[in-house]
């Protein structure tokens, strides 16, 4: 229906839910029809609301200036605001980059472990090279070259696999695939170069320590695999870890605002601190438990003792801890998002919400509001209009949110507009002629504004000066970065014609919303109940959660490969110990129980570490979220973590199964003969 009449249209195509169709719901959606048809129906041939054109000058800005200078009756504005688009995707990009850190950490530990394995397996060859006059530098160069080659091969395979997965996701993930509509696959070739360089650099950096250590010992000690005790070094690592963890905790709790600015660093410091401290905690714990458990749970006790004393198995715990921390991050973030959105909607007083209203004249808007006031099912005094418009302040991107200051405070208890002096910050906005504005803390921080600042707000190309009369923490409200101004100012001064309406009803919201949709359709309005709006918000956040979960799952899967690798390293290092046990009459079942026990203890201990660290980590995730302008109160929930933890236990335990078949080939005599 448009222009008050119903038109029958044939559907000749279905577009995906993006671009002009982005805001579509099952109640209200956009349709594209030929301009001539609409113009003919309305009798406005040759007239246009909007004309879209490409720039004629070198830059968009010069082209717009040129157009606007030449046309007094029309105003050209950019079709879309690049800053807004960047701001919209920045959360996702930042969140994904954040998760990438975990993948990189896990992968780094694994490559480190792999090179340790390479060096361990080749220690006799390395020792022989050294004994024949090769320098330590020669050995290191050879190993570094190997890491380079691994980087090239791994990078090549990874890139090919990555492109394949992207192609698959693009094909099978296209929302309208069932209708034969698949998004064209796009991939920037330069990314291959970046990925290859990253792969090579990453492989070489991760191999740095094992390669350096490969030739550090005396030649005889390398050949005979004699390790020097480093008690002092162990204490230093504990002390450094303690300083890192406690330092980040002190900053996070005692200086929260400073902590937000340093949040990524604090999180890294805390994780590194945990990784440096836990071996010492485990040392004390296992030492206490071992003798007590030995008479009753013999193989378990031996497994625990092995984990305590094997650096490779401790590396295993590190991998699992990092992967589990990524799970904690995602689960805490996801559940907090749902909780925050639910809480926010619970604290807002409205039953029905009409968005996307395109009424560009006073009469239409008045008629619309009158229609609502006349409806007995609607609480008249609850009807409130708001609008949002993009613009700029001093050349910087800005969003203005037009509100009714008399109603807005009552409308949302989610934002606390009472300042530290007990005054309501919205009061000054009532005087429209003064043009006052209350800005979000994020906006104040980004643009360097304070109470008392005067800003030139450019909306729709019309610049007006506003006084900043308040700064408020808007938490996750809308874009979290906005200027609250009186709606009347936006309408009258800046000619903003669209808006939203919120109101309460004393009837069933679903029935009323369906009925009102028919009325608002003529204005392009989309009617939703509060529950629908909340669910859409939660679903939007879930999309981000799902992306993060995929990364987290990736970390766990990569971690399980790392865990297996470490188990192999540890087994190779202790082959003779197992041969000793075999010579003393150990059977295969006992050996497998020891190996599985080691694996299980690693994963259970890692989970214990993560449980203890989880609460603090959730706080740091919250501070990192604030750092990337996504402020939210993140909480750690053990019960929400439980399924992921149990799944991790299963995955990591299964990851050790290939090792069990490898140990069948243990040659006792060969192992016992060798020194």
């Amino acid at each position, binding site marked *: 229906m448009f222009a008050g009449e119903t038109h029958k249209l044939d559907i000749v195509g279905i577009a995906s839910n993006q671009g002009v169709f982005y805001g579509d719901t099952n109640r209200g959606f956009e349709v594209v029809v030929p301009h001539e048809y609409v113009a003919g129906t309305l009798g406005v041939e040759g007239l246009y609301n909007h004309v879209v054109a490409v720039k004629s000058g070198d830059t968009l800005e010069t082209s717009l200036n040129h157009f606007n200078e030449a046309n007094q009756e029309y105003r050209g504005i950019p079709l879309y605001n690049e800053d807004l688009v960047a701001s919209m995707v920045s959360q996702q990009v930042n969140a994904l980059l954040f998760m990438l850190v975990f993948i990189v950490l896990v992968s780094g530990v694994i490559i480190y472990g792999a090179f340790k394995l390479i060096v361990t397996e080749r220690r006799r060859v390395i020792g022989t090279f050294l004994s024949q006059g090769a320098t330590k530098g020669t050995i290191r160069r050879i190993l570094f070259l190997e890491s380079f080659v691994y980087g090239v091969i791994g990078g090549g395979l990874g890139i090919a696999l990555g492109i394949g997965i992207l192609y698959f996701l693009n094909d099978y993930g296209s929302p309208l695939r069932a209708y034969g509509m698949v998004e064209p696959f796009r991939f920037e070739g330069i990314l291959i170069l970046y990925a290859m360089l990253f792969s090579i650099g990453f492989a070489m950096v991760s191999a740095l320590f094992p390669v350096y250590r490969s030739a550090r010992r005396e030649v005889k000690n390398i050949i005979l695999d004699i390790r020097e005790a480093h008690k002092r070094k162990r204490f230093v690592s504990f002390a450094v870890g303690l300083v890192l963890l406690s330092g980040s905790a002190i900053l996070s709790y005692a200086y929260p605002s400073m902590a937000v600015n340093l949040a990524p660093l604090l999180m890294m410091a805390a994780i590194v601190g945990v990784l440096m401290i836990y071996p010492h905690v485990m040392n004390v714990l296992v030492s206490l438990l071992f003798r007590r458990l*030995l*008479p009753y749970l013999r193989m378990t006790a031996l497994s625990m003792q092995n984990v305590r004393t094997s650096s490779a198995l401790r590396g295993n715990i590190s991998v699992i801890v990092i992967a589990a921390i990524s799970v904690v991050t995602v689960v805490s973030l996801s559940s907090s998002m749902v909780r925050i959105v639910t809480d926010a909607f619970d604290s807002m007083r409205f039953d029905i919400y009409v968005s996307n209203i395109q009424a560009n004249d006073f009469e239409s808007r008045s008629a619309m509001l009158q229609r609502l006031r006349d409806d007995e099912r609607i609480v008249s005094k609850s009807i409130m209009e708001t609008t949002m418009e993009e613009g700029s302040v001093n050349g910087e991107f800005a969003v203005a949110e037009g509100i009714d200051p008399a109603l807005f405070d009552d409308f949302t208890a989610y934002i606390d507009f009472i300042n530290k002096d007990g005054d309501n910050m919205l009061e000054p906005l009532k005087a429209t002629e003064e043009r006052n504005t209350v800005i979000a803390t994020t906006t104040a921080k980004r643009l360097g504004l304070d109470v008392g600042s005067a800003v030139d707000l450019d909306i729709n190309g019309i610049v007006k000066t506003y006084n900043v009369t308040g700064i408020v923490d808007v938490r996750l409200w809308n874009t979290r970065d906005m200027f609250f101004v009186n709606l009347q100012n936006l309408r009258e001064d800046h000619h903003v014609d669209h808006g939203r309406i919120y109101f309460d009803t004393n009837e069933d919201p679903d029935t009323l919303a369906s009925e009102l949709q028919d009325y608002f359709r003529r204005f392009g309005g989309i009617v939703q109940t509060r529950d629908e709006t909340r669910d859409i918000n939660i679903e939007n956040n879930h999309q981000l959660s799902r992306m993060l979960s995929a990364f987290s799952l990736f970390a766990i899967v990569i971690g399980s490969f790392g865990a297996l690798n470490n188990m192999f390293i540890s087994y190779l290092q202790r082959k003779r110990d197992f041969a000793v046990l075999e010579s*003393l009459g150990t*059977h295969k079942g006992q050996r497998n129980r020891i190996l599985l026990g080691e694996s299980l203890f690693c994963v259970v201990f890692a989970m214990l570490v993560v449980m203890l660290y989880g609460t603090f980590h959730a706080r740091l995730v919250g501070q990192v979220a604030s750092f990337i302008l996504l402020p939210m109160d993140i909480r750690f929930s053990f019960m929400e973590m439980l399924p992921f933890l149990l799944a991790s236990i299963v995955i990591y335990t299964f990851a050790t199964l290939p090792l069990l078949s490898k140990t069948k080939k243990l040659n006792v*005599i060969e192992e016992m*003969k060798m020194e």
Partner: protein
Amino acid sequence: MIQKTNDHLEHCIKVEGLKKTFLNGTVPVEVLKGLDFTIAPGEFVSIMGPSGSGKSTLLYLLGALDTSSEGAVLLNGKNLGSMKAREKRVLRRRELGFVFQFYNLVPNLTVEENILLPIILDGKPIKKYKKRLEELLHIIGMEDRRTHTPKKLSGGQQQRVAVARALIFNPDVLLLDEPTGNLDSTNSESLMKLIVDINRTFKTTVVQVTHSDKFAAWGHRIIHLEDGLLQKQA
């Protein structure tokens, strides 16, 4: 006097037509070419011979750590070749003690725990063997080192612990593969005195492989091997 299960037997170990062939790549190499000898209960026998003569291979076959290609090894009348893997494991734990040249202690266990390891693996109550543990710690003179891990011990001390571990079940037979091969002369002598004491005190049958003429002579009898064949017995 400690009673052994094999006191009534004529032979503690009986070797009949023992052969062992290894594959060197695809080429079969016959290491033992048919050995026949017996060892009486409580006897101390030294096996000597040049490198590659098959001494250690023979010891591993006696210790049920390897299987023969032909012939038989009878321990207290039981044919090792016809025993199942599980039976061999129990035998290794309870009736045989094995001491290796390179000690082969478990590095992350203490002296006490290393000595008790066969008990731990066997599943027997550890408490019941506390007295035996104390006795062995006294015999090897390491009561004050009981909580030390192997890396804190000298080679001689580690080998004493290995001997104590081999004796925790008071086995009938103690097999030693070049026990002094990695020790200095003082420690070697001290260890050999300990082994002789054990042989005398516990009537434990001792079979040692050694390169040392001096320590070989500490036994009751020397078996000489060369190219997988028994050359002479002295």
